[in-house]
């Protein structure tokens, strides 16, 4: 700590560059509707994503009603069920999680945390949201067209997706593909902003290794998305042409219900390769921001610097890189050359090593910490548990031979819900409880928060943990009803009913959460400026909540984001932009500070 109190360090001049040309809104419309301010765009993104996410949630209830109590709800027919499955999956993965983590948290946090006034291309950033909104509207429209939305499964595998045996073959699939194409265009606009802002608009002194892990997670996830979405884009364009113009990119010779179709010579597996070349990085597009955010939340609420920051950064980069060479582990039983299995099983299990290290480091951050059991912290711990669980089942499914009996069963459903459904959503919750005061100036109600946490955590575990065992029994996924079989015991139906009841209870807790947000916006307790005593720049803005332009003078960054409980310092945190000569050193009498937990 040679430089603490060093006056020279305190005399570093402020940023000498001319301030960025900041777009100043002139009317209510340009301030709140067609806004170019990343914070407003973030909130627009978040609200849209959560709104469509609620649709996805309701769809999951309908699905579970059918699975838990087959033959009870006559309004759910097989075609409806497959439409729910499809739309639930697509909405949750793309339109909720991707949009919320990158468009929502990315937009809000990147400029604030790197110490910039706004994104580098604000106009493009605004366009990004509006194209996303159109994509969501097109997607929603498919519920109202003749034939309804597509029921092809969120993977949209051809030839099935565009043939008449699948619900929504007339309009649903077309709207789905158009919506995805729009989403990708919109995302690319936003994604360029996120990456370039992190690269170019960092405040003075904000070196790469001083970035909070939230930014690292979002940054690498965005790079993955920019490089992975083109695969989905080209796959969607090809399938659209197959459906509309009758080309045969993915369509071989087909005899449908005794009738020879005009398609010839295409390759269905090509689609699967393209889809999963996007689809596996997509898992990390959702997971990496969650990794980053959870690292920051744990560190802040345990009052301890994140354990092994460098390893955490390297692991994010390594996972991001490896995620491009593991895609075919989704295709072990797809009929591709079986020898690929050796390669993809190996790469997949290698990716487990950096992922496991991240997990150890979160737990080791708690170790010797001073843990505040705030709601964000509770959700972080829930994340660790569910992510560990889902990561472990990933070791089953990534290991090619083990995948063979388990693929396409409820085990897979349980696995990916645990690892990329429940776990990232817990981080979203934690992040909302953590940053809500910053966004609104008010705290969320703690009582309702605790209720929300306990019901969601325990409920989600009780939903998905036993579901793995249904998969072991051999219950296949995407089944409207399993009916009579020789291998599924009757008790499995009881378990299904139990899971459905839990789903409805957990669903109710989400309603409480939404209510909490709305109520707290209006009459929540006013927040202090930095209620969690965090070190990062977003809490150091000129106004609170941060206003247009974020900062007064652009901040100068003197240290990394994890200066917690530094020995010899009075406070247990030092903000990143606090000049060294302003640090409040401990008096010698204050011996408690030295008494580090053993």
């Amino acid at each position: 700590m040679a430089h603490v109190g060093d006056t020279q360090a305190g005399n570093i001049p402020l940023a000498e560059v001319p301030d960025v040309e900041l777009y100043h809104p002139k009317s209510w419309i340009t301030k709140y509707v067609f806004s170019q301010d990343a914070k407003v765009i973030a909130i627009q993104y978040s609200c849209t994503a959560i709104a469509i996410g609620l649709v996805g949630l309701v769809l999951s209830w309908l699905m579970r009603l059918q699975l838990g109590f087959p033959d009870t709800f006559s309004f759910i027919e097989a075609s409806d069920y497959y439409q729910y499955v499809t739309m639930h999956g697509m909405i949750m993965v793309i339109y909720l999680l991707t949009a919320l983590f990158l468009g929502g948290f990315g937009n809000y946090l990147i400029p604030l945390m790197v110490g910039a006034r706004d994104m580098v291309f604000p106009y493009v950033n605004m366009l990004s949201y509006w194209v996303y909104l159109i994509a969501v509207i097109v997607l929603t429209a498919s519920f109202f067209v003749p034939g309804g939305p597509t029921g092809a499964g969120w993977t949209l595998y051809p030839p099935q997706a565009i043939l008449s045996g699948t619900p929504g073959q007339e309009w649903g699939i077309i709207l789905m593909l158009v919506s995805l194409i729009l989403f990708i265009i919109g995302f690319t606009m936003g994604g360029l902003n996120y990456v370039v802002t992190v690269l170019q608009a960092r405040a003075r002194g904000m070196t790469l290794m001083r970035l909070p892990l939230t930014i690292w997670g979002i940054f690498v996830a965005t790079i993955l998305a920019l490089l992975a979405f083109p695969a989905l884009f080209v796959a969607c364009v090809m399938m659209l042409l197959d459906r509309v113009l009758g080309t045969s990119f993915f369509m071989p010779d087909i005899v449908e219900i005794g009738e020879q179709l005009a398609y010839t010579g295409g390759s269905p597996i090509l689609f699967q390769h393209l889809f999963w070349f996007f689809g596996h990085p997509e898992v990390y597009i959702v997971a990496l921001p969650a990794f980053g955010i959870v690292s920051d939340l744990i560190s802040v609420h345990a009052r301890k610097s994140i354990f092994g920051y460098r390893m955490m950064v390297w692991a994010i980069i390594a996972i991001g890189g490896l995620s491009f060479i593991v895609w075919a582990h989704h295709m072990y039983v797809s009929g591709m050359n079986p020898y690929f299995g050796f390669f993809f099983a190996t790469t997949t299990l290698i990716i487990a090593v950096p992922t496991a290290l991240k997990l150890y480091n979160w737990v080791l951050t708690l170790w010797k910490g001073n843990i505040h059991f705030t709601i964000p912290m509770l959700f972080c711990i829930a994340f660790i548990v569910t992510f560990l669980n889902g990561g472990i089942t990933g070791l089953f499914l990534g290991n090619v031979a083990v995948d063979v009996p388990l693929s396409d069963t409820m085990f897979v459903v349980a696995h990916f819900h645990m690892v990329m459904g429940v776990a990232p959503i817990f981080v979203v919750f934690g992040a909302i409880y953590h940053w809500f005061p910053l966004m609104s100036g008010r705290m969320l109600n703690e009582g309702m928060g605790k209720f929300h946490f306990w019901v969601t955590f325990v409920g989600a575990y009780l939903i998905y943990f036993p579901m793995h065992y249904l998969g072991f029994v051999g219950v296949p996924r995407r089944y409207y009803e399993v009916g009579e079989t020789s291998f599924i015991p009757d008790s499995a139906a009881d378990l299904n009913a139990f899971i459905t009841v839990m789903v409805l209870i957990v669903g109710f807790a989400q309603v409480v959460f939404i209510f909490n947000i709305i109520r707290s916006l209006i009459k929540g307790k006013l927040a202090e400026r930095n209620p969690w005593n965090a070190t990062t720049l977003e809490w150091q803005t000129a106004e609170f909540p941060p206003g247009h332009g974020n900062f007064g003078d652009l901040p100068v960054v003197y240290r990394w984001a994890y200066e917690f409980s530094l020995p010899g310092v009075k406070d247990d945190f030092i903000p990143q932009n606090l000049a060294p000569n302003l640090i409040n050193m401990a008096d010698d009498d204050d011996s408690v500070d030295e008494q580090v937990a053993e």
Partner: protein
Amino acid sequence: MVLAIVLVILAIGSVVFHFLSPWWWTEIASNWGSIDDTIIITFWITGVVYTVVILFMAYCLYKYRYRKDRRAAYEPENTKLELWLTGLTTVGVVALLTPGLLAWNDFVTVPDDATEIEVLGQQWAWSFRLPGEDGVLGTTSAKNINDDNPFGINMDDPNGYDDILIEYDDLHLPLDRPVKVLLRAIDVLHDFYVPQFRAKMDLVPGMVTFFWLTPIREGTFDILCAELCGIGHHTMRGLVVVEELSAYQEWLQEQSTFADMLASNAERRMGKKIQLTKNQITDVAR
């Protein structure tokens, strides 16, 4: 505090559930015991990691819960510890991967004496084709499919005429004989899934996929489709009967070949024609 207790309950509860719950895999009926073994190994390794990590976390949450008079330790990293953890994880991963890849190596190596049979999937039913006396399946193409030729067998291929066709009926397999299952779909993706066999594979229109197995247990097992194939996906069922060779031979005798089918179709059609002509004659007579 409460959370620490909940985590302990959760860790122990999960282990108890694992051992006591009635939901476990159905008894295996094929040679893929090595897959089951790999799953058991994976369970042990990952189960230990899971329990240890959660219990350690519960300990941390209890031990280092917030106290006013305490301060967290300042320890940005500990390279030695991280290297140890990396090493241990790598060892664990290798221990999982090795039996898995060995099992996979068996899976992709079809024994020379395996009999080829063909499974044909379409929305939403299973059909099967067995080689006839020549022991060879005739070549096929989806373009040849019509009412007379539901399997699309190539008419120019002499090997095809003695193929035994089983449309929408049970498949029988002899006990303890390796079988190479060739998979073919004519419309969309399907997946031939018999839980007791452990093995499964997609049927892809436009190509022939395969896997192999040796049935080791007599019985009648469900065939399910495990790849979403449209609105009737869940109704796409079939049965496979594994039986002693003698019983299998007996069953095989009763099945008809492609040539038989062509003949009976032709006969039926001719019969119809003759009947029509007779009607016409009577009409004229009237």
